[in-house]
Structure formats: C-alpha cells, structure tokens
C-alpha cells in the first residue's frame, strides 16, 4: 500500500523569520520551503513577516545632524593624585622593593598581560545593500569611474538596491520600487535617494540623474520629480502608469529599472544601480 506523502513539520515563527533572512542551514531551509509550498496558512504568515521586514527596511537612512569628531589628544585615563597619596604610595613601593630584594624565589614564567577581545571572529561582512538577494552580473561593463550594483529579487513585495561611493562612504544611491511585478496597466512607484549629494537641487538634470526602464538594450527614460527630505537629501521619484510607456510590444516581460547618477562635483564619478521589474501579460 503506497504511503501518503509526508508534509514537513510546521515551521516555528523563528524558523519562518530566519528563512526570510537566509539564516537557516540548508536542511532546515529546504524543509521550510517544502512546507510553505503546500501550506496556505504558513505562506500567509511568511508573507506577513516579509512585508513587515520590508516596511522597516524602507525607513529612510537619515544623515547625521552634525559631524562627528575626535579630540586632538585622547582623554586622560588617569588623574593627578593628592600629594599625600603620592607620598604614601612611594613609601609602600619602597617597602615592597625592599621585601622583594630579601626574597629568593625560584625562576618561573613571566607574567603576561591578557589580551582584550570582544567576540569571536568569522563574522559576516554585510554588504551595503538592502536587497534580499545577491548580486547579478552588471548590465554593461562599468568604467573605472563607475560603481554599479544590480539587485536580483523575485517575488519580493518591495524592490530595493543601494550602491555606496567607494571614495566617500557617506554618499550612496538608493533605488526602490513598491513591487517587483506589475500588470500591464499598473502603476509603479519609484524612489531614488541621492544621499550625500554635493548639490541640493531638485532638478534631475542638475543632479546628473537619469532613470530608465530597459529590456534587451532598449528602454524608456522616466522623468523623475524631485522632492526633499527633512535632512536635505534630494529624493526623486513618483508614480508611473506603465500603460503610458512607449515600450515595444509585447509589453509583458522582464525589465531592469536603472538609475544612473553622474555625481555633480566635476569628478566624473558615476554611481549606477538597478532593480528587476516584471510586467505581467
């Protein structure tokens, strides 16, 4: 008699949450994936956790309100002692020295000072991206002055990627959309943050910002509208009706939304980032 297919045990809340973060070992990850594929209730729980994580990750990264500095000299780790203490300490040291001279100890190992370590090694070096997935090959070969990051995300509720300027880590280009997949008559919400821009202009041309939706080397340019966050970071974006785009038929397919930022400081440096966008048939 054939046995019934076994459904893997229902994952715990911790397992579902860690599954989202790719923090389970491969066996546990496979077990959770198998279960979720056949369980509507757990899939809904997983979706809920994913949406929550995305809502938190979408909080804007704020620029500090002031510069952080260190003093010319380190703060003193000691203080002047009152003269009486010094006198007492000197007497005590003298007595100890005399006592040691009169002792005949066998030779032994020299005492060593302990080393200080706050934790064990082997920590992950977190990439400077909020994307859930890893990187994929770039759209085109970048120039030496171009830094590029392309996010790969399938089925995520939101879609985001960040690239950090290697010459100035306070400067970063952040691109995100509200979804990864849209109906052909849908609206796509796009946000581009120019963190650490040398310019405060909210004109995309002044900022050197272009936004394109590309497929097979062809695409349409999107006109970004600028607004300003409270901390002065220029933010561009808006809602775009996909039906209004002059795209070549068939409209349905996999695209990449690409933001390119020619940093307006005369250096010629370019930051480029892209996220996947699917238009359903």
């Amino acid at each position, binding site marked *: 008699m054939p046995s019934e297919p076994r459904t893997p045990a229902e994952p715990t*809340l911790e397992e579902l*949450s*860690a599954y989202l*973060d790719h*923090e389970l070992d491969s066996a546990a990850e496979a077990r959770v994936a198998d279960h979720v594929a056949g369980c509507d209730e757990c899939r809904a729980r997983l*979706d*809920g*956790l994913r*949406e*929550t*994580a995305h*809502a*938190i990750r*979408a*909080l*804007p*990264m*704020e620029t*500090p*309100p*002031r510069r*952080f*500095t*260190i*003093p*010319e000299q*380190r703060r003193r780790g000691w203080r002047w002692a009152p003269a009486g203490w010094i006198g007492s300490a000197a007497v005590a040291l003298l007595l100890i020295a005399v006592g040691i001279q009169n002792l005949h100890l066998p030779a032994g190992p020299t005492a060593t000072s302990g080393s*200080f*370590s*706050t*934790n064990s*090694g082997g*920590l*992950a*070096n*977190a*990439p*400077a*991206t909020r994307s859930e997935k890893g*990187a994929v*090959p*770039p759209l085109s070969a970048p120039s030496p002055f171009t830094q*590029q990051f*392309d996010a790969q995300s399938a089925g995520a509720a939101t879609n*985001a990627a960040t690239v*950090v300027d*290697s010459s100035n*880590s*306070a400067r970063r280009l952040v691109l995100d959309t*509200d979804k990864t997949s849209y109906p052909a008559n849908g609206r796509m919400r796009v*946000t581009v*943050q120019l963190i650490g821009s040398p310019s405060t202009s909210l004109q995309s041309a002044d900022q050197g910002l272009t936004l394109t939706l590309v497929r097979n080397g062809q695409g349409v340019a999107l006109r970004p*509208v600028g*607004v300003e966050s*409270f901390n002065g970071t220029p*933010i*561009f*974006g*808006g*809602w775009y009706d996909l039906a209004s785009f002059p795209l070549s038929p068939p409209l349905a397919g996999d695209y990449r939304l690409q933001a390119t930022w020619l940093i307006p400081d005369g250096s010629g440096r370019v930051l480029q980032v892209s996220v996947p966008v699917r238009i359903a048939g």
Partner: protein
Amino acid sequence: MFPSNSLNDDRDLVGRARRGDREAFTQLIVQYQVPLYNMALRMVGKPDDAADIAQEAFLRAWEKIRTLREAPFKSWLFQIAANLCYDHFRRGRRYGVMPDEEITSNVVGLGIATPDPQERAEANERTRLVRDCIQALDHDMRIAIVLRDVNGMAYEEIAAVLRVPLGTVKSRIARARAQVQEQLQRHPDFFPTTEDAHAE
C-alpha cells in the same frame, strides 16, 4: 557590482588608528557614521540624542582602539554604541520616546517621494507608524530588529554585537517582527496585507 572590501580596509585603518593615526580613524568615522547614527536614532528616537550617542561611541572607540585585537572593528563599534543606548535608557529617559511633531511632518516616508502631496502625506504617515511600532518594542527586541532590518547585519554579527547566543538573536528578531506586524495590521489603509490586495 558594488566592490566591497571594507573588512580589509577596516583592518588597515584600524591598524593605523591603533598607532595613533587620527586621519585613519577619521576615515573610519566617515565610513560608519551614517549606519551608526541610524542605529542609535531608531533606538532612542530623537536625532540629538542619537547624535550624542554616536559621537560618544566614536570617542570611546578612539580612546580604546589600542585594546582592540582580533575582533572586527564594526562589531566592536556597534557594541559600544549599543551599550550607550542601554545607558541612555537606564538614565531614566522616556521609554519609547515619540518623535517631535515638527520632524514627523517633514520626513519623507518609507523612502518614497511622489509629486502628489496626498501620496507624500500618506508616505509620511506610513513612516511614522513603522517608527512608532519599533519604539514600542522592548529594548532587547528593538536593538535586534534594528541591527537586522535597519543596519542589514547578519545574525552572527548581531550575536557578536549584543554578546548573546545565535538562537537568542533569531528569537528576538522573529518576535519583534511579529509584534510590529500585529501593530501595523491595525492600519490596513496604510499597510494592506497580501490577502487584502488579492481581495481587491
């Protein structure tokens, strides 16, 4: 692809800073000031308090960097800042500080900018709700979810920062997400669930 070699860069800069090179340490400040400040901001709520914590963390790190041996600088620095956040709470500051109204009204929410004032207002409201939900968490859960979802740290790195076992990190993050989710679901106009979206 983003060329990331920050761990090696850190080692070089930390090595120079340990020998008293202020410029090297200043580069470390530039590298970590935004993520460190944002961690503190999401923990304590007020920009001025967060900036004070970040400044003090950098100062202590500069003073103690000669004691740093094998531990990664990033984990060590965030550990200092996390301790300062806990000190801040212990000093009797308000629990779950609400952001100033003036700041709330000017924040562009969820990283979303739209040309439509109504959309912008809705985005502001979404940001405020998420921020309030994080502030309502207890400190242990809050710092775990902030390090994960704001700072993007791996679980092992969070465990090192907080000096707790990996299982504790996993549990705190999961429970924090569940609590935030429960709170956000009370605002279906701003946070429709996947089921709501399918029902439309």
